């Protein structure tokens, strides 16, 4: 029992200690080697920049823009990814005939399309949303495809022996056995959607946190660049945790959730 509790407490002790350790090492290195703050600012300066960032109205407007891009891109990827994944999962002939194209489009460096997206969709939100959705689409689609194919034969036979209709098969069996796969895809997709939006902002337009990073770099403000990276990481973490929380709510029965809740050593 006590061992069980210790395991649960472990991350709450280890994570803060490691962070403190890293910050201390950072400070020590910067002081010891007398590093130019333009190249690598000490933690104190970064913290100051971070506080000034959070008290800056423009930064909050930029945050709203970026988060809107991420969430819109992610939601589009989810809808399209689920539909395409289910259709390809159900129609094997279609999946087999499209497989080469899927592989090619999956390995293609989609970030390289940003200049084209800017030409097609302009410097506004749309080009970022498109990149974000494109990056997030593949993990969702591929996981859903796998999920549709992974329904247990024994479960199918139960439904056959119960004379279930197609609709009942879908709502009681296929949809539910698909959910863990969908959430696995979503956890990867939310991270990629964040990357998509920020890279989109790096390369075009004049709005959002990615754009602020580029601006800070151009004015050689290393502390602000670090502060923005910190802020973006926090946003990414919060979004990830939201998806994770949704997973715990929707599939409490699944190994990935249940096992964590009841770690028995």
């Amino acid at each position: 029992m006590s061992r069980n509790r210790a395991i649960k407490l472990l991350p709450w002790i280890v994570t803060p200690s490691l962070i403190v350790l890293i910050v201390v090492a950072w400070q020590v290195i910067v002081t010891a080697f007398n590093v130019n703050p333009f190249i690598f600012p000490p933690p104190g300066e970064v913290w100051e920049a971070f506080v000034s960032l959070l008290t800056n109205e423009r930064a909050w407007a930029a945050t709203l823009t970026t988060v809107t891009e991420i969430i819109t891109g992610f939601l589009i990827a989810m809808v399209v990814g689920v539909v395409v994944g289910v259709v390809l999962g159900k129609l094997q002939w279609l999946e087999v005939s499209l497989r080469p194209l899927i592989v090619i489009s999956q390995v293609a460096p989609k970030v390289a399309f940003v200049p084209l997206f800017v030409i097609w969709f302009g410097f506004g939100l749309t080009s970022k949303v498109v990149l974000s959705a494109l990056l997030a689409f593949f993990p969702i689609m591929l996981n859903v495809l796998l999920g549709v194919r992974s329904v247990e034969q024994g479960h199918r036979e139960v439904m056959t022996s119960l004379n279930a209709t197609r609709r009942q098969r879908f709502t009681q069996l296929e949809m539910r056995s698909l959910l863990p796969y969908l959430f696995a895809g979503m956890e990867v997709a939310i991270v990629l959607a964040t990357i998509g939006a920020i890279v989109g902002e790096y390369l075009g337009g004049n709005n959002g946190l990615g754009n602020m990073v580029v601006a800070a770099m151009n004015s050689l403000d290393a502390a602000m660049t670090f502060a923005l990276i910190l802020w973006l990481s926090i946003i990414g973490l919060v979004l990830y945790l939201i998806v994770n929380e949704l997973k715990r709510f929707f599939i409490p029965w699944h190994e990935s959730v249940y096992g964590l809740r009841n770690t028995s050593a």
Partner: protein
Amino acid sequence: MPTMTTHDTSARVAPSNAPAPEVPRLHITDLGRDFTTRAGVTHAVSGIDLDIRVGEFVALIGRSGCGKTTLLRMIGGLLSPTTGTIEVDGRSLWRGAQVDPTAVTKLGFVFQESNLFPWFSVLDNIALPMKLRGVGKAERRARAADLAALVGLTGFEKSYPRELSGGMRQRAAIARALSTEPELLLMDEPFGALDALTRERMNLELQRIVLETNSTVVFVTHDIPEAVFLADRVVHMTPRPGRIRQILPAEFEKPRSVDLQTTVEFNEIVRKLRHDIDEEE
């Protein structure tokens, strides 16, 4: 649900009104199933004739590959026969490769694996067949709770299947199969994956449940004592092609206790079956 109630009454009333029911619960004539593989055509099951009365417990036994599971899957509407007919209460189960939906509703199937849905609680798993038939939520929950009690799962209604032991999962699977009050309960080595002690206990439990619900059962097993202990008749099948070699009655009074297994009469049947099955080599 109205149709279920009708089935129920006809099943319970018929034997008392008519002392010798004309129509057997299960009527199988000249049943066969071929499988085509690269090596050619295999006759998995061939020329099966079998009648099962209302309330009878029949065990199918034989070496692996004797076609006992194939036969059960055809009776269960999961696999279409190549030849022959299966009638449940006089109604033909198969029309070509298509299964008659009305005839299937008379069946309950228990698989070797419990095949419970991991996303449903025990109660919702038991209630699933009723849900598919449109039974209202309150009614199916009440009936599922009764069934959970019948199979000894009271207190575990809200548990997920993963929280149960193998034996408890099979209890839940049996409750699920019983939830539609099937005319015919089909069981495919339901305790095959359980340890010997749990298995012995499940056999006693199954006997009690079958007597309480007055079920008609076809039970596939490769365990000879289990077959003789549970069944009224033991159907011995032989492979290549899968045929019925002999049908042995096991007419012991019910309920049977574990002590039956030490009696001479019981062991005579077991010995004969074992001898005949060994002989097949």
